[in-house]
């Protein structure tokens, strides 16, 4: 793509890829913060999806860097796992909601050792 960059860098050899990697790190961290902060169980799982997004974006960026489609194939598998996770997690949330009539994760804090 650009021979003039031959003096370049191992990671993030061109700017769009570097920006994509920065976004992926930011998305992952925002998802992490959301998972730790929010107390609504559904939103907590939505935040795990945000983290999935961050990871998938990093894979696409490195696939572009290496000019190799394996990274993209991996993102398809990530999509699969995310779909399976969403189905199971939401079924669990519905189950938990029926038991305690609230979506708050704090309602289940008595599950820990006490």
């Amino acid at each position, binding site marked *: *793509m*650009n021979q003039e*960059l*031959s003096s*370049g860098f*191992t*990671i*993030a*050899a061109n*700017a*769009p890829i*570097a*920006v*994509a*990697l920065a*976004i992926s790190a*930011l*998305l992952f*961290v*925002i*998802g992490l*913060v*959301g998972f*730790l*902060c*929010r*107390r609504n169980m*559904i*939103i907590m799982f*939505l*935040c795990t999806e*945000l983290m999935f*997004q961050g990871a*998938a974006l990093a894979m*696409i*960026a490195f*696939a*572009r*860097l290496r*000019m190799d489609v394996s990274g*993209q*194939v991996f*993102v*398809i*598998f990530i*999509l*699969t*796992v*995310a*779909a*399976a996770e*969403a*189905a*199971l997690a*939401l*079924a669990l*949330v*519905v189950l938990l*909601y029926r038991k305690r009539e609230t979506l708050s*994760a704090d309602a289940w804090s008595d599950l820990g050792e006490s």
Partner: protein
Amino acid sequence: MVPTIFYAACAIAAAGLALLLMQSGSKFRMGATILGLAGIAWILVIVVQTIPTPASEIGPLGLMILCAFVSVASAVRVITHHRPVFCALYFVLVVVSGAAIYVLLSAEFVAFSLVIVYAGAILITYLFVLMLAQQSPADIGAADAVDYDRIAREPAGAVIAGFVLIAVLGGSVFSVSEQKAESILDQNRAIRQGWGDLSMMPKLLLEQARRTDSTVTAVIARKDGQMIAVQTDHSAIISVQRADQMTPSDLTLAPSLLPDNTSRVGMALVTRFPVSLELAGIILLMAMFGAVVLARKQTDIADDDRRELAGLGKVMDGSQSIQGKAIR
């Protein structure tokens, strides 16, 4: 370069996010938003500055930065909004801008499957569950929302943990990028791989050959055993059988006939990762079973017998049990 400036940018973005998450922060909402956006913008500027950009890449870079802002800002809204339905809708925005970034990184197939699977399927599931589980009045202010949506759990600690992570990650990238190393962004390698993928797809290869020369009847292996010989100008030479000739002759394929992203992803999926593909199918099947088992009404096996002894109807049939009670 010591990435002190990068750490400072991270700290500013973190402060903005923490203020947005704190309940008392609603007073400084405007200031916190500006602070957070400034921090993110600074991080992006530092990242872009570190790498020399040729003029041909300014356009994609600008689009990428636009998408970056949309995506990160709506991600922040996902974790700060007090109404879960709006969180889910902002997540759709994250997904769509993410798909735009994928297209800019020339991963078209994954971009569209992302929109279909995430925005189309997963988010609808989330919205369904939200509406099943949450009955809140139509328009409520931030003050009237349910407690667990209004008050964040230890925002300061979480934000510090998150942005220490990003500072460390970013710092390590900076320390690596100082070392002189050869660029691995290699166009020639990509072209070779593209032609190599095409040589494994005989039908597509024949089609492309016919597109170049309509008299071609078959593509045969070259004398050196390879199907395709890649030239330095990124075109490729194949050996073909033509309708009006007895002996095979050479045909040059232009680089525009390289297989597109979708066929390359499909090829990689079935040739390099067939087992993973099967496993993905099994995971989906098991997830479906699991969801059905979890979402069913859970009853004890002995429950029905005990209710029968007490003269009540079965658990599964709600109306009958109520009738039973009414009669006795």
